[in-house]
């Protein structure tokens, strides 16, 4: 908690006294830790005088915020309409099989987290997945397996 306070203080300073800041604050924190550490909630509450219940309410409402730590690579499967009619279901099955985890889970080696999203806006390349900030399109099961193998082997820095 004290350590968290030290870490977050500079980040929170610019938001003090401003209104409507809770979402940007949480986005900054998630950018830094890739999830919202439970300790950070108390810090935000104290520093910005926002009730803990309200912060938790916002975290649970928005799909973007995670309350659990994630792997090095966040694999997001597009489940938008265009991907759906182009068989994103089988991409999803292949990924679950290759990583041996379900959606919203993280592999034991903390390398991959699997998530589902509604449309990445590259629908013309459907089916699409995104690994961290990189988009892969026009996929089939074979290509997906290759991409995952490559990440496993090379473990590029993002």
């Amino acid at each position, binding site marked *: 908690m004290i350590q968290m306070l030290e870490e977050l203080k500079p980040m929170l300073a610019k938001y003090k006294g401003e*209104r*409507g*800041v*809770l*979402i*940007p604050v*949480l*986005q900054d924190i998630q950018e830094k830790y890739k999830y919202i550490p439970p300790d950070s909630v108390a810090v935000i509450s104290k520093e910005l005088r926002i009730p803990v219940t*309200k912060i938790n*309410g*916002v975290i649970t*409402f*928005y*799909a*973007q*915020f995670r309350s659990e730590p994630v792997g090095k690579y966040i694999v997001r499967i597009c*489940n*938008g*309409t*265009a*991907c*759906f*009619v*182009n068989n994103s279901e*089988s991409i999803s*099955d292949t990924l679950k*099989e290759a990583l041996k985890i379900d959606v919203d889970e993280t592999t034991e080696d903390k390398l991959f987290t699997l998530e589902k*999203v*509604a*449309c*990445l*806006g*590259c*629908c*013309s*390349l*459907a089916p*699409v997945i995104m690994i961290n*900030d*990189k*988009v*892969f*399109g*026009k996929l089939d099961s074979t290509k997906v397996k290759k991409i995952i193998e490559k990440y496993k082997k090379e473990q590029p820095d993002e």
Partner: protein
Amino acid sequence: MNNIKRIKVGMASCGLAAGAQEIYDILSADLGDKLEGTGCIGMCFREPLIEIEFTDGRNLTIGDVDPERARLLAEKLTTEIPEEWIIYDTASKEFAKQPYFSKQHKIALRNSGIINPESIEEYLEKDGYEGLKKALKMPGDDLCQLILDSGLRGRGGAGFPTGLKWKFARRSQNDQKYIICNADEGDPGAFMDRSLLEGDPHAVLEGMVIGGCAIGATMGYIYVRAEYPLAIERLEKALIQAREKCFIGKNIFGSSFDFDLEIKKGAGAFVCGEETALMHSIEGDRGMPTLKPPFPAESGLWGKPSNINNVETLANIPWIVFYGADKYAAIGTEDSKGTKVFALTGKVKYSGTVEVPMGSTLREIIFDISGGIKNDKQFKAVQIGGPSGGCLPESLLDTVVEYKALNATGAIMGSGGMVVMDEETCMVDVAKYFLNFTVEESCGKCTFCRIGTRRMYEILDRISRGEGKMSDLDELEKLGHQVKNGSLCGLGQTAPNPVITSLKYFRDEYVAHIEGKKCPAGVCKELILFTIDEEKCTGCTLCARNCPVDAISGEVKKLHLIDQEACIKCGKCYDVCRFDAVIKE
């Protein structure tokens, strides 16, 4: 080389996903200052795309540019470019007749794929910020009237006359008013607004400043989906440039008008596209819709009068102000004026963005402009308007694109997503997909939206497993009407549309699932059976080697057999067999 004026690489999200950055880097080694990045060129299905502009005005569009092609191109530019690389050549005789060009009319997308979206100079060359200059000299009432006269209606879905909305906001007296751009684009399978923001961010900014000027707002917010990082980046750059040139800030164009803008990132909730929810989200709260009235024009963001418009609506504004309301109103039909951008995806040949005059038919958009169905399959339906819209059959393809005619079908104009489906798409499955989306995205405030949609989903799920009853169909209709009438916001009010329209136009398919226990499209797993044809199987073993659960047995060169108990209906055997020996029914 000397006859080349410019080379543009399509660098919108989908281009980058297809590898445009690498292409750009390869070409930049040889072409240097003639090379430029641009936004969505529209032919997203052939990404990465490049366009070569020659000094004599000829334009060549080249598709599927992989690194190999890029390297060859860099060498070949002086000589000839292989025919099969070329998608369009303005110098060819057929060019003018290509429906892809002749049937489109670009106003909102006027600069997308043409200018470098990161350069304000290029926007200025295209009469950028001239509309604003003109607007600043007009009384606010006249400006609202001009937009009203143009006939422009909101492109975010509801189609409310923009000029009228502006008049309401203008009439509200307050020391602070806001103008908000809705760039939440939550409809899964639609990317018109992304293309616009990435391809021509200044058009949207200019539209907002003009809007501010018209209603008397001095502050604006753009609420963008967090899933659109590139759109956010380009908006941020554009904002800095516009500030430097004093198009945003204090005393714009030397007038007494001040206006500032802030970009807000969404956090992944579809319902935040609804206007009241969006404002709560900007305020830092859970994005739950609230009852109207009060309308945003009276009491919106932080209780102040606010006007909210969609990205495409705003991108049209500078054009209308600059060229005049008459010019805009001359395009389209009695009911709907101007143009509409659509994002075509699914089983259509040329997926991408198109902009057509109102009054075009669905057939023209899907078949003439977008090339019809991929792999010469049969057209089955087009889904318009996303989770709030409907699925329309072949018999309605001659429906014209306008608010009135589309509403009459049970679908809606929506924001512009068109997902095309072929014979291999199951309509029950699609209806189930949309209901699942609504169930997940409902904010939970209204009982009918929260529980009614879940009940509908369960019924559809049952039908897709072959456990449905004919009475379920009536039940679906009944629940649909209850959800429509018992919901507070547009999400719940329109959520049953995909089910209701598919029941109306594709009832046979529901009946086949219920009475025949068959999925005609071969999609619903519980209702399909994979077997091997004794006559055709050569015993090549390929299927057995590909089956993920080892459900296939058989010796080399002997007939193979599928163990139905073990089979998980993944369809791999069906896909891999080279002798058409696997039967799907």
